[in-house]
């Protein structure tokens, strides 16, 4: 098993994995949209049982997490969202879902300053519910009526990422200590700054907006804008 960041070349196989396991499916462009907007947040699990003969051999993807940042958070708090997560039935009980999720969550905190992560799950999907609740420690926030195309309700679930902020903080401290003993003072100084997101956390709720600015570059465009964008021949420009 190999757990690596989602690469565009994985997409056809992630797509296969998704449509094999789940009723919510997407065309390739939607995966590209994730991979090109928040490349740090999506991960795949690759089965290595077929020894790769050439680099062109397709990877056998047996699990993935497709994740994003909420582009316009209603509550103003930057947070991540799990668009889709699944593991092939043949590869269950290996803890893959959790391993994938942890990689994604860590990047949500480190790169995008996410405070929590949310997701939706079908109310009938007992297995998934158990995974999110028991294994991954998500909490049900509310039920969203008729969330799915077929009219089924969804549990809206949430997990606070405070525990990752703590871990990141500890790691940074360790790194800094380490660096002082081995690297030049200039680099040591440079590393002081690496604790920046942690610094924000330390000041609690005071600066959510500033953290949020971190995720906003350019216009926050969703995939629909992406799809429908058309040029216009302005007579004067």
């Amino acid at each position, binding site marked *: 098993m190999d757990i690596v960041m989602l690469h565009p070349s994985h997409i056809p196989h992630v797509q296969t994995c998704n449509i094999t396991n789940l009723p919510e499916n997407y065309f*390739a462009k939607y995966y590209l949209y994730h991979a*090109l907007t928040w490349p740090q947040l999506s991960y795949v699990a690759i089965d290595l049982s077929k020894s790769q003969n050439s680099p062109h051999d397709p990877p056998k993807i047996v699990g993935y997490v497709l994740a994003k940042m909420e582009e316009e958070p209603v509550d103003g708090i930057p947070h991540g969202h799990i668009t889709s997560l699944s593991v092939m039935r043949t590869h269950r009980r290996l803890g893959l879902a959790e391993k994938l999720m942890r990689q994604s969550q860590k990047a949500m905190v480190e790169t995008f300053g996410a405070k929590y992560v949310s997701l939706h799950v079908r109310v009938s999907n007992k297995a998934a519910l158990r995974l999110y609740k028991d294994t991954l420690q998500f909490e049900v926030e509310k039920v969203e009526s008729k969330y799915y195309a077929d009219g089924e309700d969804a549990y809206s679930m949430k997990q606070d990422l405070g525990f990752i902020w703590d871990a990141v903080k500890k790691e940074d401290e360790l790194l800094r200590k380490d660096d002082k003993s081995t690297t030049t003072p200039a680099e040591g100084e440079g590393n002081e700054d690496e604790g920046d997101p942690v610094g924000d956390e330390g000041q609690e709720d005071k600066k959510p907006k500033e953290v949020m600015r971190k995720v906003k570059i350019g216009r926050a465009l969703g995939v629909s804008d992406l799809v429908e964008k058309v040029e216009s021949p302005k007579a004067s*420009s």
Partner: protein
Amino acid sequence: MPSQQPLASKEASLFRNVLKFYETKQYKKGLKAAEQILKKNPKHGETLAMKGLLINCQGKTEEAFQIAKEALKQDMKSHVCWHVYGLLYRSQKNFDEAIKAYKMALRFEPDSQQILRDLALLQIQMRDYNGYIESRRLMVMSKPQIRQNWTGLAIAYHLAGNLSEAENVLTKYEETLKQPPPKTDLENSEAILYKNYIIAETGDHQKALDHLEAIARTAVDKVAILEARAEYNLKLGNNEAAEKGYRVLLERNPEKRLYYSGLEKSLGVEGEDRLKIYEELAEQYPRADAPKRIPLDFQEGDAFKSVAQKYLDWRLKRAAPSTFTSLKALYGDVAKRECLESLVEEFLATTREEKPVENGEKLTNGSSTPNNSVLIYTLYYLSQHHDHWRIRNTEKALSYINEALELAPDNADQGELRLGLARILKHAGDVRKAMEEMDNARQKDKSDRYYNTKCSKYMLRNDCNEEAIKTMGLFTRNDVNGPLGDLLEMQCVWYITEDGESYVRQGKLGLALKRFHAVYKIFEDWTDDQFDFHSFSLRKGMIRAYIEMVRWEDSLWSHPFFRRAAVNAIKLYLLLNDKPHLAHGSLANGTGEDAVDFESLSTADRKKAMKKAKREAQKQEKAAAEAAAKAKDERKGGEEKKQDDDPLGAKLAQTTEPLEKALVWLKPLLEFSPAFLEGQTAGFDVYMKRRKYLLALKCLLAAHSIAPEDPVVHEQIIRFQLFLNSKPELSPTVQSIIDETFTLTPKESTLAQFNEAYLSSHADSARASFSVAKSRQVLAAAEGSKSDSEGTDSETLVFEALKKEGATLKDAVDGLALVKEMKGDVGRYVEEARQRWSMSNVFEVKA
């Protein structure tokens, strides 16, 4: 430059409205306003152009082009007219023409950023790097304060392979900054990492490392920094730093293999020490699979046994169904797979004796006791072991899985195990029972799409296409285009391909082509998908990911999904080239059964049969159309369904130029997958038929260098030499090139001897026997002396192939097709094949 035809102020304001309506997609209103202008100024070019553009948005492309051309006639020097002309071509995906039109537009309005941007997008989509650099340079010059413009120019240089200029451009922008951007500036964070990525690509890792250290505090993509730092240090021989780097990375993700190999390299460990590292890491990361599993790859003999035992203990006690999958890669090594078998058997023996495990592992399945679960999945392992293609002892595999099934009261386990049982049956060739068992698995948990998917797949393998789509339909969105429509829209390539291959088996060539073309369409869509990202990614700033995407797109058509559909489609077109009657209704059914008859019919009877077939085909098409209409009625209120005027693919199959159609598939195959053997051999066939002998030879030589001993290559060598022997009229140039390059047949012996020599040097291979048999026939035919004895000789060879140790079930099925082609004793062949593959029902002749 002002328009050649100024409008009065009222009309000028109306014209502005037209533009506004277009931009806001209010096409009807836009058209109305345009008509109003045209009433007074019927020859106003720019208004006509806008009218054309609006009409195109309503789907009337032909009319749109007409109007746009008329517009240009009225106002040749208007950039609006040219821009619209370009937009129309763009909407038709004729990018070359669109680029030309945009360039004309720019000539008349050199300062238009809009046109320049549109042009640039097309240039990068077409990979016109020089054009793109030029457009991007103009954009920087006109708006140097915008960072995106600089990054865009750097991308242009980078993709064109000019790394130093790419770096240079990024540096130039950085130098314009009065003070460094804050850490919260994600665009900056990504731009500096992008610069580092470019420096690394120049191969100057010291410079890349220095730069990385300088930006490490500003960039927020921590994984990227850690990975790059470890990699640069490793490449520079800074082993200590590299080791530290990889250890930090492993702490983050102990399941990434690259980190382990990096760590090993930085430590330069061998032998005993190598194992020690992994033992330490396994202790450090007790939940990680990799540090326990990797030593199985490099340990041998007793050392292997000891690590394998530990690994198996850990995995089997957890009763995970995937233990075998994790170890399968080792099965190429006989000693290792035998060792694994005996270890698992030992484990099984102990487990059988043991009382239920106290304080058992945490298991998800409630009803079976933990110990029971362990036992079940140990048996499951052994069943998979014996079903492995290198071992393939179906009897043993079945006995293990059946014992496991008896022990498993729980539905979850039952489903899992039935899945395994179905797989064994499929491998044994009992596709019908395999399908039934997979359906049993599905019944255990109907809410699980995985079971549902596999069940549909097995239905297709058993050529039950109707059932398959119905089953898929339990999970697809059926409100718009029905289950198949949803699968097409969701680009479910595996299903479309399997469906097509099933139709090939059934001789339904039209439907088969229809499916393969759907795969082609998906690849076209995946190519088009990148278009919007050329601008989107600049806005988002995630440049490294964008570059990876562009590079992936560049090799997209080498994808195995495409290759598989392409090889299928080319074979069908070759078949249709030889036997066009197969395109017609019932003559296309029944795996060529009717077709064989058809060829022996008299001309008059052929005509009759053809008429009948066409009548039947019409009936089928009508029924299909009615069914579609009915389905549409049932979906009242749903979205409008797109009309498919060829639901059965009859028009595709009835093409009058099958070889040209084959080329559409062949070209990308040869261009993007030159090392793909089947592509080259298919190319040989197509080009021989097209009488492009040099191209055919090129494919043959390429195929030979990929796999000199391949049976198909052998056969093609003989066919090419026979062709040369027939003294074809070739131009002197062609002849001399062939003389120089084609040296694959021996000068000393005859082709027949060459053929027999190949047989004796490949005595174990069934496929080699087939190839020699076919070649014997071709040689005999060329001599014009197709005596009975030679016919029988070839047939005997095919029969003998059935008994070869290495023969697979697939070989046997291919052999059957060959016997049919030779008009040999099909009944006896099937009987003999069944003696070896007793459970198989793939030899049955389907109605």
